[in-house]
């Protein structure tokens, strides 16, 4: 199957600033694909290269097998939902949605029926003749979506479309977007800096940082097996501890922490004894007990506890410089029995620690 989008060695320079370099990957047909990264990582630039608003400095972009990087935006069968929607202020909802169809030379009847169909899809029937300024943020967002999907693009590009909405609406729209993508079968490329958004909606995620691709994978892969320190740190919360390998058995390594204690972790690649790196452990895969548990554990002193509703987050000091964040569900443990300053044992869920070379 031809990929929907195929990027090869894509590079973008703005003067001396390298916004993107060496970006090579494919996005499959029908996929909900997310570009995730902090601001300035190049994700929006990549989206703009695919849309045609910027020219590539090097590399090629193929859309279903056809080279498109030299086509102007009005010749590319992709459409964009803009961050602040960019709805035409002098046109009403129906005119906004019908604009692309008019440009493509559809007949008036075809336009009318397609616009009606789109207005129904985003449930804006009673607002068809309103101007964008007379709509709420959520309604404008729907119009932008309907406008971009009306011409049946092969790929829909979404540039942080939910960032201007408030939390409740944002969560609701996540579900709607996902449903819309599944029902229409259009390939979505979704740009966001919000990892929760990315994890909850995507088939696959590309994590980007400083103009480079860091990792591509399903939400589960990205979360459970981060490729490097950046990904581990950016996605979710984690404890990062410097360590060196003392024993190797396949992908399972035993490593020594700075305070001399040892942890067993899974590694991405084959490692030699003595290799230096970091161990990443999610707070929720750690638990604190006042007495020594069965199996592997680390000893430390309990720091402060922060109540978070369903969870409590503890800080445990292993020695002067090392501390771990531990998150435990309330009710499961007797967190109340622990007080700051107590000596405690921290145990790691089996197979939860990761050894990262960088």
């Amino acid at each position: 199957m031809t990929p929907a989008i195929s990027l090869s060695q894509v590079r973008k320079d703005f003067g001396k600033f390298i916004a993107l370099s060496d970006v090579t990957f494919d996005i499959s047909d029908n996929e909900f694909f997310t570009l995730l990264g902090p601001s300035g990582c190049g994700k929006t630039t990549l989206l703009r290269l695919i849309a045609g608003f910027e020219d590539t400095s090097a590399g090629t972009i193929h859309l279903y097998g056809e080279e498109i990087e030299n086509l102007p935006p009005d010749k590319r069968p992709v459409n964009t939902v803009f961050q602040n929607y960019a709805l035409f202020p002098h046109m009403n909802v129906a005119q906004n949605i019908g604009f692309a169809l008019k440009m493509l030379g559809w007949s008036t009847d075809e336009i009318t029926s397609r616009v009606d169909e789109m207005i129904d899809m985003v449930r804006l029937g009673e607002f068809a003749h309103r101007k964008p300024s007379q709509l709420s943020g959520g309604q404008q967002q729907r119009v932008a979506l309907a406008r971009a999907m009306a011409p049946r693009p092969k790929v829909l590009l979404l540039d942080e479309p939910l960032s201007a909405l408030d939390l409740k609406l944002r969560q609701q729209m996540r579900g709607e977007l996902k449903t819309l993508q599944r029902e229409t079968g259009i390939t979505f490329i979704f740009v966001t800096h919000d990892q929760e958004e990315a994890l909850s909606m995507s088939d696959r995620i590309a994590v980007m940082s400083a103009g480079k691709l860091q990792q591509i994978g399903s939400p589960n892969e990205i979360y459970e097996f981060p490729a490097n320190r950046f990904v581990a740190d950016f996605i979710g919360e984690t404890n990062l501890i410097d360590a060196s390998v003392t024993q190797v058995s396949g992908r399972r390594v035993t490593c020594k922490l700075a305070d001399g204690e040892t942890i067993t972790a899974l590694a991405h690649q084959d490692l030699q004894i003595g290799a230096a790196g970091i161990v990443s452990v999610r707070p929720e895969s750690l638990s604190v007990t006042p007495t020594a548990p069965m199996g592997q554990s680390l000893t430390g002193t309990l720091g402060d506890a922060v109540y978070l509703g369903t969870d409590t987050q503890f800080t445990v000091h292993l020695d002067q410089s090392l501390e771990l964040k531990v998150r435990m569900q309330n009710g499961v443990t007797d967190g109340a029995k622990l007080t700051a300053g107590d000596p405690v044992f921290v145990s790691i869920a089996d197979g939860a620690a990761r050894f990262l070379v960088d």
Partner: protein
Amino acid sequence: MAAGTGSGKTISATFSPVRHWLLMPSWLVIGFFLLIPVVLMLIYSFLTKEFRGGVIWDFSLAAYDQFIFDRGLFGDDPPRIEWAYISIFLRSIGQAMGATVLCLLIGFPTAYFIATRPAKTRAIWLFLVTIPYWVNLLIRTVSMKFLIRDNGPLNEAMLGLGLIDAPLQLINTNFAVQLGLFYSYLPFMVLPIYASVERYNFAFSEAAADLYAPKWTILRRIVLPIVKPGIIAGCILVFVPSLGAFLAPDLLGGAKTFMIGSLIEEQFKGNAGNWPFGAAASMILLSMVLIVLMFYARAQSRDQT
């Protein structure tokens, strides 16, 4: 939008004891120097003329009568329309429209160019636009007269380059007057258009391109409608003073390009004038301008809904 929210209200309330008086200086200036003279002119236009300038305080419609009818509406003969003054009036409208179109054609690209420069260099370009205003209008118009006269530098240069065989008749033509008006009022076109293009969100253009609109269509269907208020403001700011201008027509146009501004000026200059007639012509000019502005205001309020 956020009227009455916390700090905003407190700050505007700082001035509340004197707020009503803030406009007082403007009201005084406008009252004394605009309202009173206009009312005076309105009264004068209905009085009888004194032969050496000035007025006699007798009510009369003679001034308006003279403007519109040949030999008078109240004479013995059947009234006929007097075309002399009306045609001066129509010509003035034509000249002002010509100047406005010239200003728009040159001013829009200029304003668009400036508004799309990086923020730092925009101030420099705007400054350059205002430079001609450092020189008195009279001086500028006179120098244009020298430039475009039959054996002036422009004709000499074109002859020298072999573009023309004989000097072009530029001076004393309608075109010369339009050129003079255009030169006088161009910044009035550039500045309001600049202000609206500068506020224009170029994401609209990107969205239109993304939705398959070619470049010229984007300009026509997206950019122009959105910056229209600036264009209309610019056109009014050029058209209105052009309509009543007398400097450019006097200096650059001949007898054939006599305009309403010059007609009015003559009525008040020296001893040969006719004050009520000049006042009546002014009132007709003023009502024309008000009608144009009324259409503009109606179009504006229609756009807002």
